[in-house]
């Protein structure tokens, strides 16, 4: 295979040498260079690799990948019902867009934007509290590297133009979520090739705090983007987070997401992944349970149609005793779409008394759709509870008939049942505002689907 993708990214990175942050941020330049060396040497993953067995990146490998053109950004629309969100932070093509954002001052939450900090340090230096934020950010980047290293995380580090740091103080409870919207804008539609966007979000939830956040990805145009997002979440002792991602990008785009959650003692994370958009998407959710009492709940829903390909990889590492994970992913496939679910759970030797449960259920609306579901349990401890289950099936004709017998036409019955199947995930979300937000999106997306073909 011609490695046009990699070669063009190498060229793009080398051309960036003029855009060094320098000064107080020379550590960032070094980190980007280091990441560059890593992905350049590794190359893009191929299907020969275990983790990429079912997902081909030929589309990316064979295309030119460029940085977005410099251009004026027009008005950014908001497709979401966002009344319940405390704040709304908008990134366009991976760069903070203050005009479209709503950022009220909230006691106990600090926001920082890498682009702004760099700008300020150039224009006359940072105040001491800003300097502190830079130190925190740097620590975060380093923590990400030690959690796990991947080609896509390294690509993100090399190409990121901005980063959001959200810091929640200790002992604070925020029930209403914050929305971070990653919009890909109107770069010229390329015949082949992609524009790359590298959103980076760092979330730190202090000791005994509770926080909720949604990251939404959508497109403002039909332009082809390669969105390569990385989110790192760091939880203090007994901290709790509800984290939700929803991807609604246009169906020419390619989306790679990496989410890494770093736990502490008795901390709790609820993470949810909703995938509707992009031609090809891959989400890696990597969770380390390396402190006693840490608990992670993972859930996901994907809806793929036409030629879409959606791949979810989850990795939960139970590294110490008394850790818990519970995951459920569900998907609906129509057309000639393909889905991959690979749920990887590792229970390390000393992680006794750990619990791990995993379920993946797939609903096939078309004979031409395909699913590869692969639970992967590696258990090196003996006193643990672990379970997994996977199903692939069609709608139960008795259910369709029951609705039809109540005057509901067949295509409406199919939609209603598909929605019911999907809503188990949205209704299962613990944060009430996120639950309402997501069940609205799920209903809207499934109502919009076309049914009628076999």
């Amino acid at each position, binding site marked *: 295979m011609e490695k046009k993708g990699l070669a063009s990214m190498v060229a793009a990175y080398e051309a960036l040498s003029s855009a060094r942050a320098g000064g107080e941020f020379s550590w960032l330049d070094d980190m980007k260079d280091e990441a560059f060396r890593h992905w350049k040497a590794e190359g893009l993953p191929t299907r020969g690799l275990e983790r990429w067995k079912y997902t081909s990146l030929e589309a990316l490998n064979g295309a030119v990948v460029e940085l977005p053109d410099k251009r004026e950004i027009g008005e950014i629309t908001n497709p979401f019902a966002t009344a319940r969100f405390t704040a709304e932070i908008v990134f366009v093509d991976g760069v903070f867009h203050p005009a479209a954002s709503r950022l009220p001052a909230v006691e106990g939450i600090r926001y920082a934007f890498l682009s702004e900090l760099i700008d300020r340090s150039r224009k006359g230096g940072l105040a001491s509290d800003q300097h502190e934020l830079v130190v925190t950010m740097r620590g975060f980047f380093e923590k990400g590297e030690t959690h796990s290293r991947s080609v896509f995380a390294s690509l993100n580090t090399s190409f990121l133009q901005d980063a959001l740091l959200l810091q929640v103080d200790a002992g604070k409870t925020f029930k209403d979520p914050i929305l971070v919207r990653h919009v890909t804008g109107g770069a010229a539609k390329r015949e082949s090739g992609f524009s790359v966007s590298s959103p980076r979000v760092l979330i730190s939830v202090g000791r005994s705090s509770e926080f909720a956040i949604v990251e939404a990805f959508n497109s403002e145009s039909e332009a082809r983007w390669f969105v390569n997002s990385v989110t790192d979440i760091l939880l203090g002792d007994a901290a709790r987070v509800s984290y939700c991602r929803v991807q609604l990008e246009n169906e020419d785009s390619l989306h790679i997401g990496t989410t890494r959650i770093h736990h502490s003692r008795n901390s709790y994370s609820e993470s949810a992944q909703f995938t509707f958009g992009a031609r090809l998407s891959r989400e890696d959710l990597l969770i380390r349970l390396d402190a006693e009492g840490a608990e992670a709940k993972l859930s996901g829903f994907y809806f793929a149609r036409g030629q879409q390909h959606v791949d979810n990889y989850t990795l939960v590492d139970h590294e110490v005793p008394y850790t818990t994970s519970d995951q459920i992913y569900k998907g609906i496939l129509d057309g000639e779409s393909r889905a991959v679910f690979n749920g990887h759970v590792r229970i390390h030797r000393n992680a006794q008394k750990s619990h791990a449960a995993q379920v993946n259920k797939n609903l096939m609306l078309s004979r031409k759709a395909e699913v590869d579901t692969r639970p992967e349990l590696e258990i090196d401890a003996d006193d643990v509870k672990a379970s997994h289950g996977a199903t692939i099936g069609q709608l139960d004709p008795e259910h369709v008939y*029951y609705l*039809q*017998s109540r005057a509901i036409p067949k295509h409406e019955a199919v939609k*209603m049942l598909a929605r*019911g199947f999907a*809503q188990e995930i949205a209704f299962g979300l613990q944060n009430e505002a996120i639950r309402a937000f997501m069940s609205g999106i799920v209903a809207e997306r499934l109502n919009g689907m076309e049914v009628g073909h076999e």
Partner: protein
Amino acid sequence: MGNLLEIKNLHASVEGKAVLKGINLEVKAGEVHAIMGPNGSGKSTLSKVIAGHPGYEVTEGSILYEINFQMKDLLALSPDERAKEGVFLAFQYPVEIPGVSNFEFLRAAFNSVCKHHGTPEMDEPSFREFLRKKMEIVNMKEDFIERAVNTGFSGGEKKRNEILQMAVLSPRLAVLDETDSGLDIDALRVVADGVNRLRSKDNAIILITHYQRLLDYIAPDYVHVLAGGRIIETGDKTLALKLEERGYDWLLQN
């Protein structure tokens, strides 16, 4: 008055096995017909064929149903079209549908019928109010409507939910397939009471049952005995009492 339903020489099979072997039945608006008979005689098959279950194949005969004062071929209509024209089947085993709320389900069903007849659909608040009144008929608690359709319902709740659906859709022809089975006496009374309140001169009810006890609560105009895929005896409600007393054997021996 003319017939609402005319079943003529109906033969039907399931998975290639002949179950109905020449059913003839005429039903007028305002009438209640009870169909009794031993297990495996074809009672449930008859109800499924009337309601258009895709698993049953009609091999001979016809079912005509009155639509706008004309007898139409019911078998040519899809299950949802039949329902829109007022055919209703209360299932013997209502299915559980996780993830779809009873409210959403009932409103979609109701509005689908409205749309078909060109009457305005109901918005959420007015349907909620409408539903509240219907729920009183079957003595249902409010929280019931937010739960997923039949999911985790007890046997009695499922049957009451069927009658609630009947109340919401106001069918012209309701077929109740063993709605009494599995009910204790209190639940039976609630269900029977609901059916009686929905009974009118404009609609007809076909009760399929094993037991006479349901007929103590819902008095039929006719009782038919179905055996071996045919109606072998028709009488008034005293026939049911006779069956209760003597069983089916005396009829089958003829």
